[in-house]
């Protein structure tokens, strides 16, 4: 046990447990659903995970600072629809321009959230509850009750969702999946190696201390919201590429899946701890459950959301009880190993 404690932090144990749970779930669904282990199932689940994970990375940045962004679903839906419409009207927009447009629109919406939270001093849950409704309403107004349809989109968009990066046997890894993995790795590196990443942890860890520590905590929170918006924009583009047909309710309710992914992935809702790898694992678990339940006939469609809610509660409660206990165990054992300060 003490050897285990030396080499693993509680957070890492948690991630390990998550991997085991994901494998167990995959095995379980395999016994329940016919023709489960096929390339098609993998494709559907991995693409779903890719989108959730991209948004979850953005959400993690915000949650680390002890804030919350529940407007992500509307930001994803808005960019998917907006960029889709532009591509329908102007078939000649270059792919890179379209992606940058999506990221830019997302970032602008995130900026609005960030300014209200960091400088307006309004609690983030209220700000983003407001913008959740506002961004969606703007989308409805803008759409004029029309939808984006696949056959009017340029061919490269439609090809995107079937573009392969590499394959392992029957399992194809799509470009969207590769993109999501790149995002996770990039932001994990930012968290670990850039001062900005350390500042995010610091702010969520002790906001009062951050105020007097001499770094610009308001700006850091603002940037977290902007990055979250930008990643929602990117995810919106991925959403467009995956589904091609976009209605005004696109990505509605996605905040639920994303928040579930983040908390299941071990990002503390009280800020200050969590990793992108954890968020990815959380997204993997949520995507797996979500997509498998669609095909598991035992459970009705309507129970899927209840199950997500239950997972959020379990993760938060589990954290409160288990991780805290583990942590105090760790700290105690480290204190025992550290040279005795008090002896004189």
């Amino acid at each position, binding site marked *: 046990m003490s050897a285990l404690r030396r080499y693993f932090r509680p957070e890492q144990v948690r991630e390990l447990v998550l991997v085991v749970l994901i494998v167990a779930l995959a095995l379980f669904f395999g016994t329940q659903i016919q023709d489960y282990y096929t390339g098609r199932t993998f494709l559907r689940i991995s693409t779903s995970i890719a989108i959730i994970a991209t948004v979850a990375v953005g959400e993690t940045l915000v949650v680390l600072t002890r804030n919350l962004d529940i407007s992500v679903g509307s930001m994803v839906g808005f960019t998917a629809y907006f960029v889709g419409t532009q591509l329908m009207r102007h078939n000649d927009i270059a792919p890179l321009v379209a992606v940058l447009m999506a990221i830019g629109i997302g970032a602008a919406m995130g900026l609005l959230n960030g300014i209200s939270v960091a400088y307006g001093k309004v609690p983030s849950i209220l700000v983003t509850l407001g913008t959740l409704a506002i961004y969606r309403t703007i989308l409805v107004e803008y759409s004029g009750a029309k939808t984006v349809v696949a056959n009017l989109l340029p061919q490269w968009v439609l090809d995107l969702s079937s573009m392969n990066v590499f394959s392992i046997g029957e399992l194809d890894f799509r470009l969207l999946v590769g993109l999501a993995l790149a995002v996770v790795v990039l932001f994990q590196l930012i968290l670990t190696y850039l001062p900005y990443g350390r500042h995010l942890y610091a702010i*969520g860890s002790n906001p009062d201390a951050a105020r007097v520590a001499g770094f610009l905590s308001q700006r850091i929170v603002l940037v977290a919201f902007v990055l979250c918006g930008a990643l929602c924009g990117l995810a919106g583009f991925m959403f467009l590429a995956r589904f091609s047909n976009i209605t005004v309710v696109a990505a509605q309710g996605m905040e639920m899946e994303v928040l579930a992914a983040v908390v299941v992935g071990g990002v503390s809702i009280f800020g200050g701890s969590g990793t992108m790898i954890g968020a990815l694992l959380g997204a993997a678990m949520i995507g797996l459950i979500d997509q498998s339940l669609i095909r598991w006939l035992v459970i009705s469609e309507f129970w899927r959301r209840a199950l997500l809610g239950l997972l959020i509660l379990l993760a938060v409660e589990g954290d409160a009880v288990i991780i805290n206990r583990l942590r105090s165990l760790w700290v105690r054992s480290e204190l025992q190993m550290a040279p005795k300060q008090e002896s004189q």
Partner: protein
Amino acid sequence: MLMNAEKPPVMHMRHISKSFGATQALDDVSLSIYPGEVHALIGENGAGKSTLIKVMTGIHQPDQGEILLDGRPIQIRNSAAAQDHGIAAIYQEPMVFPDLNVAENIFISHRDRGAIVRWGRMYEDAATILAKLDVKLDVRMPARGLTLAAQQAVEIAKAISLKVRVLVMDEPTSSLSAHEVAQLFKLISTLRNQGVAILFIGHRLEEVLEIADRVTILRDGKWISSALRSQVTTEQVIQDMVGRQIEDFFAKSQAERGDLLMSVRGLSKENVFSDINFDAYRGEVLCFAGLIGARCTDVGLALFGVEPADAGHITFAGKEVKIRSPEQALDLGIAYATEDRRQFGLAIPMSVATNITLPTLRRYLTALGLVRQGDEYAMAEEYRQRLSIRAPSVKVEVGRLSGGNQQKVMLSKWLNANPKLLILDEPTRGIDVPTKVEVHHMINALAAQGLGIILISSDLPEVLAMGDRVLVMREGRQMGLFDRKAATQEKIMTAAMGHNRPAMEAQP
């Protein structure tokens, strides 16, 4: 002691004034801080010490006056600017980041360590700094598990690494045990020898005068005096602080011991404390003394049912009881005034009256279950006068009162519950001397009325002055129980530091 009379001050504050609304927090205060010197800033709560620090560290901007650094006037717009000028502050409650490790905490405010965090070098540099300060800490350990003293050491290391020239220490000793204070003072001496100018604020006068080279006294936002430490006496300092003579520094307790109120045998809680035995009598002040980590507070919390004990027997007013919740404790007649006013004790944004009647709200309800505000205010007003709480009215928010007055509100709240036994946890921590004396008088008066009082305190002079009997704890174990006559400073300290065997209850 080396004095730098000929050296120019590193920092000079000239005619600083600052007001908040109608309150004049600072009124034409001037102060010079010299390199290699510990400059003590002394004053009652509300004297303007905190505001002065906040002006120095860029949290507040002065309305008038100027700040000179090396003779040149500077503007300190925010804490980042203060840091650039080499000014840093360490507060009463250490401002560390619990989720980050020791090394990260030391370097979190650095902006000159390149665009990419080099973990290996950071750990090495952190270890070097800690070694220079003679502090033994694992740099990879998360700050969450550190003791308050260790957290302070981390903050000092951080300040040093930022090449601090002026270090402000705002009541750094108030949460430390005697041994930790000694270590901190050693650290301060090291800094002083390295030429750092230190502005030291403290409320334990003996301590402050022990470490200071120079003393400045503020009162009601005004500068009263500045002098070399060697040229002032304790009496002069107190006189300057309060502007009047204080005949007795600590009130003496004279109450007669009444009936047996509570009897505790073998009280234990796994991994927290074990085998606590004592009797508490009406009219008596029983002190729980111990250094930080002695777990006195945990016994208090167990007696009040917040964190119930898991073994042992409690007899209260003649009946064997198991205390499982604060509600039950209150019903029995046990009240507990907590150490941490902000976290556990008071609803800061609510009014004085609401706070006082909170635990006893049932008494102020109409038949329909609505609150009779008139009665509520009347009751609160009574306490405001009885305990001379300095608040313009009972409708004022508690957050706007000074620490000492908040403490009185908390006492009122529990007195209003008419307890038989009152547990007071560090009731004078962080409050100024005159208010402290008032609180001590109040405790005496309550004991004289027949209340049983358990006073948890890490302030040794307070324990010696107030305790009819003293129970000493160390790391969750009862180390001794002394009668007033037997309780000397040496005996309590040796017991608290663990140099003698656990003693049995000294039965009368």
